[in-house]
């Protein structure tokens, strides 16, 4: 189902990792805060214009059809509108926050049909809040460092990150699709996560 992820780069070419202007990343947070403060529809539409197509792309690469991906993108942004008050810029950057919304919808949306109703009821408790992480850098600074670190990866390494980001197929299916042994898939996934861990630990 997710074969598309193998053919196309889900992540834009490395040069796109050029640091975003500080005001651009902080402004997304400000826009969410404006929605929270006074249901600012202009601010919301700016968020929609930027994140809508990206969330749609994310859903399509995760295996959703064009129409369904757009529906999930709308639901993601609808959640942004409705839950804007719960956004805390000191805890997460705008893109991290919106990613978690999209991710949760992807989990629900792409798997809902596969789960029995009572399983769904059991698993709906999957939402509790997290404490603020103990970090010295703020969320925007961390995102910038992360972006810079990703831009330093080789194409092979980016390939590994991509594999871990979009694959939700059982490992045997990935092995079949890529025509490599099962053990190789597992070790490659593991290597990509370890690479990310190194990057993340450097942020501390």
């Amino acid at each position: 189902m997710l074969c598309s992820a193998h053919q196309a780069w889900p992540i834009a070419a490395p040069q796109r990792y050029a640091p975003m202007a500080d005001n651009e990343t902080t402004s997304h947070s400000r826009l969410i805060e404006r929605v929270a403060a006074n249901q600012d529809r202009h601010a919301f539409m700016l968020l929609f214009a930027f994140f809508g197509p990206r969330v749609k792309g994310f859903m399509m690469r995760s295996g959703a059809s064009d129409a369904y991906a757009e529906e999930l993108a709308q639901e993601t942004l609808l959640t942004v509108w409705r839950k804007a008050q719960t956004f805390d810029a000191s805890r997460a950057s705008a893109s991290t926050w919106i990613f978690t919304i999209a991710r949760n919808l992807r989990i629900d949306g792409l798997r809902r049909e596969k789960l029995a109703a009572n399983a769904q009821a059991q698993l709906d408790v999957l939402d509790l809040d997290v404490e603020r992480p103990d970090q010295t850098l703020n969320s925007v600074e961390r995102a910038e460092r992360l972006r810079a670190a990703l831009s330093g990866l080789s194409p092979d390494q980016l390939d590994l990150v991509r594999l871990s980001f979009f694959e939700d197929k059982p490992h045997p299916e990935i092995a079949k699709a890529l025509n490599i042994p099962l053990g190789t898939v597992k070790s490659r996934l593991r290597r990509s996560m370890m690479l990310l861990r190194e990057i993340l630990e450097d942020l501390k």
Partner: protein
Amino acid sequence: MTIRHHPDIATLGSFGFGTLDKARAFVVAAHVTSCAKCKAMVRGFEETGGVVLEDLEPAPLSMGAGEAMLDMVLHGADADRRTAEPRLAEVDLRTVLSTFDEGPWRWLGPGVHYKPLTTAPAGEARLFLLKAEPGTSLPEHTHSGTELTLILRGAFSHSGGRFGPGDLEEADSSVEHQPVVDDGDVCICLVAMDGQLRLTGFMGRLLQPFVRL
């Protein structure tokens, strides 16, 4: 509660990116809830997700998508449409524990009972609770798929170490072990498992025909 055994980094990453199946995600979430170290790591994967999302090639929206969106938020159209909680997926262990009182425990083998929590379709990981009496020696076994076990109460040991409350064990076909439950307290675990449990010991082979796990 001292946690000594954590999920593999690949499992944590899949959890943060949301590519883990729900049964496994549930078990990992239950661990992450009480493990600051893993919580911080999951947070990092979520941040990575944010950066990757920002830099994704945008997929053009259909004509009129913006108007439809505006209509949706301003007029409460489709008010009952799903909204996802913008939070880290976590599990309240008390909610899991409260399910102990519901439904019967089923006999699995001498001193061992289980209680299914989900009825996952074939090929998907199943979620169940496992309860073993103090001192029980579980049949030596291996797995045809992979298995995540979170210890909720009590403790057991095998060649891979001792596992107590909050510890998470990952096992697959490369692991063959024979857990022994500590004396003194029952051991209750939350388990996500796909594939078949394969009993390899002598007792295990005798039991295998009766074990539908």
